């Protein structure tokens, strides 16, 4: 392909991304160095917003909550996704049906799924799960006003809508494991558990890593489900980083757009750092291909 042809094919996409992603990003970078309100020109304040962000205990709590949620959910997704993938992969003609059912939680908008979860758990809304938990434990769990129960339902909801993705990617990985390897393990008399642990899991390490990095990036951006599931997130200490940005930069009158933008910039730096191994791989491959 000639260079001119390449540029002609790529230009529309580059223009769209340049105009609608790079330009806004530039604005965010500018705002992060200013004290600013919507619709007004900001005043340059240097790194003051970054200082304010890093010393704000509320942001510290938000980071703690988000990172905790990310670690717990990612671990659950890898383990649960693997077990589910192994079970579903062994199915025959019923596989499309099971996959269809399991995909439902993936296609429902997160804010709507969160609302559905809240009705399942809240005693005020005839929550059936809440009713069962109360019957079994004899205790009334306050799912929306007690920090830990609230964290549990947020985590459950996040696992609920991300599990299909993890399962499908792992199924793809399982189908790539060479049959001879499994046969060799069987001939050597390896048990099922041993085969999974020493043969299958090492050979799909790359796929599991991919699931982990995508899950981490997506859960770091947790926002939608909290709107429905944790109306008192700020008081409970269950505010995610994204919700913090929304609250300081948009909700509370847009007074602290600079602060929110500074947090955005910090988050972008963190994400680029996490993506670095992938970036290096792409750079190497694209040059050779």
């Amino acid at each position, binding site marked *: 392909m000639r260079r001119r042809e390449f540029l002609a094919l790529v230009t529309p996409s580059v223009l769209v991304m340049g105009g609608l992603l790079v330009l806004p990003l530039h604005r965010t970078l500018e*705002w992060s160095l200013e004290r600013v309100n919507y619709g007004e020109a900001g005043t340059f304040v240097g790194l003051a917003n970054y200082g304010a962000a890093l010393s704000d205990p509320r942001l510290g709590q938000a980071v703690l909550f988000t990172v905790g949620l990310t670690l717990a959910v990612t671990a659950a997704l890898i383990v649960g996704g693997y077990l589910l993938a192994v079970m579903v992969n062994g199915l025959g003609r019923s596989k499309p049906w099971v996959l269809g059912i399991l995909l439902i939680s993936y296609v429902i908008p997160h804010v709507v799924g969160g609302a559905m979860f809240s009705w399942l758990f809240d005693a005020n809304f005839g929550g059936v799960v809440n*009713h069962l938990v109360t019957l079994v434990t004899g205790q009334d769990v306050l799912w929306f006003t007690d920090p830990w129960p609230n964290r549990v339902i947020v985590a459950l909801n996040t696992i609920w809508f991300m599990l299909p993705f993890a399962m499908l990617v792992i199924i793809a990985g399982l189908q790539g494991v060479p049959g001879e390897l499994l046969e060799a393990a069987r001939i050597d008399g390896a048990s099922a558990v041993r085969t999974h642990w020493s043969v299958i899991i090492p050979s799909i390490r790359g796929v599991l890593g991919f699931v982990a990095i995508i899950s981490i990036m997506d859960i770091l951006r947790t926002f939608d489900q909290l709107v429905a599931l944790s109306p008192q997130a700020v008081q409970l200490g269950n505010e995610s980083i994204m919700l913090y940005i929304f609250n300081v930069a*948009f909700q509370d009158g847009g007074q602290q757009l600079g602060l929110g933008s500074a947090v955005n910039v910090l988050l972008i730096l963190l994400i680029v750092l996490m993506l670095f191994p992938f970036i290096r791989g792409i750079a190497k491959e694209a040059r050779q291909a």
Partner: protein
Amino acid sequence: MSVVQEKAAPAAVAPPATAPPRPKRRRKGSTYLVGGILVLVCWAMLSPVLWTAMTVTKPTDVAFLDPPVFFYEPTLTAFVDLWQTTLFYQYLINTLIVALLSTVAALVIGLPAAYALSRFPGWISAVLLIAALVFRALPRFSVVLPMYDISRSLGIYDTTFAVAAALVAINQPFSIWLLRNFFAEIPKELDEAAMIDGCSRFGILRRVMIPLMGPGILTAGIFIFLFAFQEYLTANILTDVSARTVPVFIATQLGQTLPMLQQAGAAAMLLTLPVVAFAFIAQRYLVAGLNAGSVKG
């Protein structure tokens, strides 16, 4: 369950005759166990949807009772009220317009770019692909908050056009990666053969690639449509009333009085049912898309 055994049977024949009947019986037992677990998992995954479906078909006075009511006279009052007392119809149309507009635009813009990126090695491609990867992972607010400001000063705030444009840009990185991975599986020899026959690059894309890419384009289209359909954050910030989408509407109904909450549930069901049907029909493509997306992992 019988289906599971069919699949298991040939595998039991394949290995050499080391272990006769015993493992076979154990396999059967574990098959039932796996089947049982899967039924439970499926049921647990469906339960929020099922409970919502029950809640919105109950009469309002028993819908939110604690302890919950399991037997009732089903009614569609909540749906009728939703339709008559809110602008749900308008919100649904908005959601569809945004999803369709952004899907078509993202494909028209993304296809040529993805084709070029799959055929032109070098540092420009590497830089563009890395940029796309980073853009995919961006915190959404870092582009959407400035878009709010820009759309207000351009006077396009609260229009479906602004939301669709934002979503085209936001979903562009993902669709480019997905389509590029599909293109990469088509052998380059086809391009060369077409060029010998006198086809230009655009001709190849139009006459050879797009027909071959049918399933890939469908898969990418389904994903972009789905993401646009699900989007809450962008739509919430870029709309006020006239361009409001269904997820935003449902979120604003939360924390209201009970009849309104039941209407929100009805709206959730009306939004969910078509998507669920869609998931069943398009299941093959969703699986293919997630697989192709992971090829680069």
